[in-house]
């Protein structure tokens, strides 16, 4: 194997730049006016992201945020780093090119449920299975926001929208199940009403080497207001959020009265702890190599009207895509001459 590439260029910045300077949230706020609707959940996610960045130990110049098209995908404009606002659905592929070209960068992908699961579903799938070194944030508002309110691939069946006046017939995709179906190495869920949880989730996702996938439940107050109200509102959380904590039995509810077990006849199910032996509870382990149990957890609460696991579902190590086959730097004209003259040649004169 050839050595990993150094990001070579005639004018590449030197790589030995000393310790990473400390930053604050303000350092990550760009000068561009934020143009989401007042009250949009995207604001709080942006804030959490900008709060999380100083903790990630990265330089501003080494961060690249890539978006496709959609309200969520406007994200890159608002982060004071390098950014690319691409075309609808293609952000994971664009980001793959960036990450391969320069593995020293921290590359984030931000997109909506339409961007990353409808037109861009395949790129997402392949970025995840390849384990490209990306942090992918899917803002799931279960609607097409920017195009003014059609149902999305995560909308619930029967949803009445501009394009489904009689109710949508499509069964929704569940982002985490799709990601685990692609054997994604880091899979997590958080939501726009809990800044601390977002900050911690973003930090961990970034720290993961390889493709990290985070579903962020997001409220679109204009076209799908209250989609997650039954879960994410402060008052509902105790009953409705199942926190996933590494190494701990999965429990939630008042006094941890409820929990999750793996029933070989059914799958992962929520139970009253009182009804089962306490040690029957599933112990959460992000690091299981087999994604089967993480997948089972992803099937809890297919709609946001039942207790919903929040946190890191899976975090396993696999080789990061592109490292093993990294090319060397371009060796220059002499090597080119050698290539041209390699193999069968003949000389005249």
């Amino acid at each position: 194997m050839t050595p990993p590439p150094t990001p070579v260029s005639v004018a590449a910045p030197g790589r030995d730049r000393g310790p990473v300077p400390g930053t604050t949230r303000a350092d990550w706020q760009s000068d561009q006016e934020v143009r989401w609707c007042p009250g949009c959940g995207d604001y709080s996610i942006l804030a959490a992201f900008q709060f999380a960045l100083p903790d990630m130990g990265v330089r501003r110049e080494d961060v690249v945020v890539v978006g496709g098209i959609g309200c969520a995908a406007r994200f890159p404009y608002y982060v004071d780093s390098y950014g690319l606002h691409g075309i609808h659905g293609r952000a994971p592929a664009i980001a793959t090119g960036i990450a391969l070209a320069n593995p020293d960068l921290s590359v984030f992908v931000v997109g909506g449920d339409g961007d990353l699961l409808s037109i861009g579903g395949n790129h997402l799938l392949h970025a995840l299975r390849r384990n490209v070194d990306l942090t992918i944030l899917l803002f799931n508002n279960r609607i097409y926001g920017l195009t003014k309110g059609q149902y999305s691939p995560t909308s619930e069946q029967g949803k009445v929208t501009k394009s489904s006046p009689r109710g949508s017939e499509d069964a929704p995709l569940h982002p985490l199940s799709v990601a685990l179906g692609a054997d994604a190495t880091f899979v997590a869920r958080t939501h726009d009403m809990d800044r601390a949880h977002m900050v911690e989730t973003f930090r961990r996702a970034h720290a993961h080497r390889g493709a990290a996938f985070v579903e962020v439940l997001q409220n679109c107050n204009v076209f799908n207001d209250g989609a997650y109200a039954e879960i994410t509102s402060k008052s509902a959380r105790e009953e409705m959020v199942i926190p996933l904590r590494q190494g701990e039995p999965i429990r939630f509810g008042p006094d941890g009265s409820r929990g999750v077990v793996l029933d070989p006849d059914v799958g992962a199910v929520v139970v009253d702890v009182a009804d089962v032996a306490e040690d029957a509870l599933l112990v959460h382990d992000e690091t299981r190599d087999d994604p089967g149990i993480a997948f089972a957890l992803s099937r809890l609460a297919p709609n946001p009207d039942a207790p919903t696991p929040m946190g890191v579902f899976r975090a396993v190590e696999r080789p990061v895509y592109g490292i093993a086959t990294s090319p060397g730097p371009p060796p220059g004209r002499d090597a080119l001459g050698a290539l041209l003259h390699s193999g069968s040649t003949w000389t005249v004169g």
Partner: protein
Amino acid sequence: MLDDTDVTVGGSGGKPSEEVTGVVIRLAGDSGDGMQLTGNQFTAVSALAGNALSTLPDFPAEIRAPAGTLPGVSAFQVHIAGHEVTTPGDAADVLVAMNPAALRAELPKVVPGGTVVLNTDAFGERDLRKAGYDVDPRDTGDLEGFEVVEVPMTSLTVTAVKELGVKSRDAERSKNFFALGLLCWMYHRDPEGVRSWIRDRFNGKDQVLAANLTAFEVGLNFGETTELIPVTRVVPPVVREPGTYRSISGNTALSWGLIAAGQLAELPLFLGSYPITPASDILHELSRHPGMGVRTFQAEDEIAACTAAIGAAFAGDLAVTTTSGPGLALKAEAIGLAVSLELPLVVVDIQRGGPSTGLPTKTEQADLLQAMFGRHGESPVPVVAASRPSDCFDAAVEAARIALAYRTPVILLSDGYLANSAEPWRLPAVESLPDLRVGFATEPNHTAPDGTPEFWPYLRDPDTLARPWAVPGTPGLEHRIGGIEKADGSGDISYDPANHQRMTELRAAKVAGIAGTVPPVEVQGDAEDPEVLVVGWGSTWGAITDAVERVRAGGRRVAHVHLRHLNPFPPNLGEVLADAPRVLVPEMNLGQLALLLRSTFLVDARPVNKVAGQPFTAAELVVELEKILD
């Protein structure tokens, strides 16, 4: 055709031989018969023998259609000569047909009086039926007027090879090496070259190696001993400029041109690609050169291939994406993004027969207008074309030059014929290759009203109108770009009408301005007072050149201009066209360059079209030229 037959000058194995200035050989057999391999190897030894040459591989779309049937026929044509040649030849002097289907499909391409070498072992009744022959063509008048040489290639091969303990099925597979041996004998090729190539190529597969070597020797010996071929032929070496030469196919030359561009620009080369005939070989070739700073990314589809390349360009690589027509269609939206982002990107289209899946293994030039206009909005893209296999190298370097210097996607057009055909190439001195280095931005380039230095990603170079290329990782130049219209200079999102008009015009002017760095077209043939000017582009170069020379030899005044740059056109093209009383535009499409010339220069450019999956022959163009000159 035999270009010219000279006196009998000597012998091979005691047989008399005659010198000919050139010969066209066509090998045809089943897809599984290894005709492409055999043809390429015969080409290679002919190149080493110093011949001029040009090849035309012609294979079916199936991996292996049913053995012995017409759709399964795979052919390879090579023109070897003692003078420069530009085409694989109008028709074959010699056809080697490994089975009846090959004979049936290919006989029409043999000159009257030509030699037809048949593998008689394959002429059983079932074989004949599969080829659609009711009666053995050897028993009908079909082969009248040809010199027929009947050789039981399969059985001769199997008998010899079986002695090595090889199973007869496997032994049979070596029969193409028998044919190669026989051809080498017929044309005085140095067998040692072939032997060492066989040893190399099948290194590690002992049985196969031994079988193939044996078959080759049997073929050679058969020539020596048989009475069937009374005369061998010598094709003298061509007189050539001094230099080191190699035989090269279009796709290899193009790959190496891209590798060269990486060295000349001192940038890593990033290829995003999705396999597709006839472009896949570029992916294969480039994937073999990590040591040259090349990374290949086999994407999940063409859109990902192109957008990943755009990402790599943003990050500072020399980014390339390769495909054929259907893939170019899929990349349209992404190329539009690159236009808007103003990032360097080389998009290679190896054109094939269309529309839709069309004729995937055949050649065509029908993607020119797609390259020009196949995107929404006003989305100008420079277009560059290669004209012969070795020229694919230079065309790739030129495409990269434009992409880098102007921060723009560039479409490089080649086609299935150029891709797979080969010719000798005089290697350029690496010192003579252009410097493609363009600096990355390292400093702010603008001052805010309050005096703070800023970086404006859309502040243009006044000469080229290119914007600065600031790559992630560069402190202080953090910025955001995207496909929404942006303000001239600052690059911020802008919906201002006047700004959109200005940016639209700037993007157009940038591409138009490339003409300033494009050399004027050179007129070949009768530059002064031609009776007709032939304008071509791409792989028609060989056939046009040959045809023009033939017609000029007949005393007519014909000029020929061949375009490397299709957008923008070279600066003097308008004048050259204005000076010609008639303009003829041969293309393997329904008149796409003709349309552009007509609209740009308001000249009555008359199209000559062939859309048959096959290149023009010079003979066909001679007919067209004579028609217009009548």
